[in-house]
């Protein structure tokens, strides 16, 4: 082959590779544009203030109401519950793995955690219906246990592998001199863990928590199956709630194309998108912080 022909192929290939890189920006831009476009179409028809402060979501009623608050509070309630369970359990497990467990135990536990991460969300939601729901129903004297607590427990299970893995990375990347200094001053393993290792790895642990929150906020199938989806304003953990993701999943299949109701689902998706974006950006900030720390 001629050298000039080779060079031409080389250049073409470079352009092709670069084009796929730019395509990635286009996909994110496309998602953002789609959300924004439909949200604007929605906000032309419904007053923004009614949308943000409305306490009732009833698009098929007359008059139709599009208040996002009950959905947003539901999403936050379930995510908060999930984190109240997942953060202590996740940090505890990560601490056990990195500080106490022998190599043999780690070799069993790590694949087990990866396995837990691989279970599809719909299978976890199914367990919420068949195992957790009867138990919780009995606990709260209700016919079934499809409520916010059920969703929170399931989301905690789903967020745990992320939180454990990232926290363990953070604990592990701490320079050994920190611990050695603490032991040298006569502190025992537990004191060192609580007073030195965990505080010093705080940025990494925060990053882990943020990644877990991001996962819980955006999860659809488990909450759709396990929280009962009552559209009333959420009253507490033992009541049925309906998150933003579940609302989109339930209603998108039924609405006619390009109606106010159709646009409204994109509008709540935009709110969800912004929430997860902010949470992920905070997480990323702390990941970079603890990576910098690690390098030093």
């Amino acid at each position, binding site marked *: 082959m001629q050298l000039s022909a080779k060079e031409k192929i080389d250049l073409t290939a*470079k352009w092709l590779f670069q084009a796929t890189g730019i395509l990635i920006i286009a996909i994110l831009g496309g998602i953002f544009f789609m959300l924004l476009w439909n949200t604007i179409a929605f906000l032309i028809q419904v007053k923004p203030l009614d949308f943000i402060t409305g306490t009732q979501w009833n698009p098929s009623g007359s008059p139709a109401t599009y208040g996002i608050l009950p959905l947003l509070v539901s999403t936050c309630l379930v995510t908060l519950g999930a984190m109240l369970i997942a953060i202590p359990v996740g940090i505890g497990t990560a601490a056990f793995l990195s500080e106490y467990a022998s190599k043999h135990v780690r070799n069993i536990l790590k694949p087990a955690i990866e396995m837990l991460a691989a279970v*599809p969300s719909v*299978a*976890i939601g*199914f367990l919420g219906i068949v195992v957790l729901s009867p138990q919780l129903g009995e606990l709260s004297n209700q016919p079934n246990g499809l409520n916010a607590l059920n969703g929170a427990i399931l989301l905690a299970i789903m967020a*745990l592998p992320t939180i454990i893995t990232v926290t363990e990375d953070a604990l592990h990347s701490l320079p050994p001199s920190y611990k050695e200094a603490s032991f040298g001053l006569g502190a025992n393993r537990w004191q060192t863990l609580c007073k030195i290792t965990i505080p010093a790895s705080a940025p990494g642990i925060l990053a882990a928590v943020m990644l877990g929150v*991001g996962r819980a906020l955006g999860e659809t199938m488990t909450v*759709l199956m396990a929280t009962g989806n009552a559209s009333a304003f959420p009253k507490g953990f033992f009541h049925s709630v309906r998150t933003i993701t579940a609302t*989109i999943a339930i209603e998108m299949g039924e609405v006619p194309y390009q109606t106010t109701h159709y646009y409204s689902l994109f509008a709540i998706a935009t709110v969800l998108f912004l929430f*997860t974006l902010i949470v992920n950006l905070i997480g990323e900030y702390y990941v970079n912080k603890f990576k910098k720390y690690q390098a030093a």
Partner: protein
Amino acid sequence: MKKLTPIIEWGTLLFCTGLVCFFLILIIGDIVGKGLSVLTWEFVSTLPSKGMTKGGVLPAIIGTVMLTLITALVAAPFGISCAVYLNEYAPNTWLTRLIRASIRNLAGVPSIIYGLFGLALFVQGLHMGTSLLSAGFTLGLLSLPYIITTTEEALRRIPASTREAALGVGATQFESIRDMVLPTALPGILTGLVLTLSRAAGETAPILFTGVAFYINNPTGYLNQEFMALPYHLYMLSTQHQAIEEVRPLAYGTALVLILVVFILNSTAFYIRYKHSRNEG
């Protein structure tokens, strides 16, 4: 009291770890325990019958396999090519940083929003309708950031000397990538690809509006038609069916098949990784 404290401390951590293991054992144990009696050859090789209270899950298995294949065909070339650009060509400019930021953000976008995007772009915008192809494309987009990240990691592990040797004997940069870098990185790339596909195979939210159906009566997956998929079939059997208690065994069977598909894909990935790491050492 002083003697008790270490036990309580140690017990706290052990309790947390035990709880995580308990969750895993509960999930696997319940599904395998109650699904195993349903899992027969007939269950995986026949169509659902009698309003889905009898029969098997063959169309859902075929649907999920086809869907995963389309996802791979869409996401692998684009993802690998983007990773090659980022690792082999990209200068450190604002454009490169923007591409990297986009990938990180795409990885954090909730899967239901990918479903909305697939609906707006493929189903309505490009007039592909609710079909296997639309759903496959949507899952392809969802998988892209993971494939790019894992491929780039695999490429980064290739030492610079591999590239320099190829360039030194007169290969162009493209030839060095095609004949040296990519073949050497192949096991790593495959591991990432298969892991990503195992995630995609279990996804439900993105295919809800882009092509999945309650029931279809032909098991051959046509690209332009709606299809059945294992995760959606499980969702449907456990929440939407008229006789939920009656079909519970079928739901367990479906859950078991789904988990088996995901775990088989996962084990394949770990096998590739394991074999490769042994060859290296």
